[in-house]
């Protein structure tokens, strides 16, 4: 009579199903209820009344990518730290606290090195390139 461990996943699937159903339900409700008089002017992208120039899918500044890059490295490191953190207390109770602390701290120190490097090189500054060019001019 004990439910299996996979039952814990059922609410996740049900909630995802409810979300999808709610989306399409709302969509069809608005198809039924809402007026639909499309016109070219109405479906122009909003640019405060001006005619849009070109497409919005254009090149963006590389610093968005640099932020994403720093994020993904930290994300992966925190993922690896999670199981170690979860058994940290257990190891400490087993009398291996010092060992676990050394493992943990040496891992984190590399993480700190990464953030220190990015800080030093100015990857964490949003307006760095602007300041550099400003200094040159003066």
């Amino acid at each position, binding site marked *: 009579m004990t439910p299996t461990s*996979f039952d814990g996943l059922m609410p996740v699937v049900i909630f995802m199903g409810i979300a999808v159903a709610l989306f399409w339900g709302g969509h069809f409700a608005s198809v039924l209820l809402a007026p639909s008089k499309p016109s070219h002017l109405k479906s122009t992208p909003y640019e405060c009344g001006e005619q849009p120039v070109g497409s919005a899918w254009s090149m963006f500044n590389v610093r968005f990518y640099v932020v994403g*890059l720093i994020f993904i490295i930290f994300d*992966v490191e925190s993922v690896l730290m999670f199981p170690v953190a979860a058994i940290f207390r257990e190891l400490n109770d087993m009398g291996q606290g010092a060992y676990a602390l050394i493992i943990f701290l040496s891992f984190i120190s590399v993480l700190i090195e990464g953030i220190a490097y990015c800080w030093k090189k100015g990857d964490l500054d949003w307006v760095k390139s602007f300041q550099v060019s400003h200094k040159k001019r003066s």
Partner: protein
Amino acid sequence: MFLQVLFLLSATLTIGCGIAVAVTRNLMHSCVFLLGTLIGIAGLYATLGADFVAVTQIMVYVGGIVILMLFAVMLTGGKDFVSRAQNLLGLAPSMGNKWTFALSGLVGVVFILTNVKLLMSVASSLPTKEINNELPSTVNEIGHLLVKDHVLAFELSSVLLLGALVGAAIIARPRKQ
């Protein structure tokens, strides 16, 4: 029962979105279908009882790699308000033509034929073991493995990530013109 349903859902999502990744001509859509494939694989991990790996899959891939890829597609999409036909709009020459697809399809078919033969013999020679549905928590055991058996790989992976961060930051950093 629920396990089978979950397996079928995940497998359909994985394979369907995987095929869509291969066929669609729009790079942005391709990335989004890859997202579906990765979520499907996370579901497959969950049916294998690998809860921690499943969540790691979602965390790293969905939260990280796919967003990074979307950023990269945006950054290589166009310049000065002109979208490059190559990436974002319409049919792209760099997304393959019928000759490359025919060639790769041939390679794929040959690969599948050889491997299915191999796989069947592997599967028939495996000892059929009783699988219990009551799984213990994988988190604690993975933690113990990481700090005992695989402690070198654990520490080295942080160094690898540091190297990746430094290298990629040097490559991608905005240059002074």
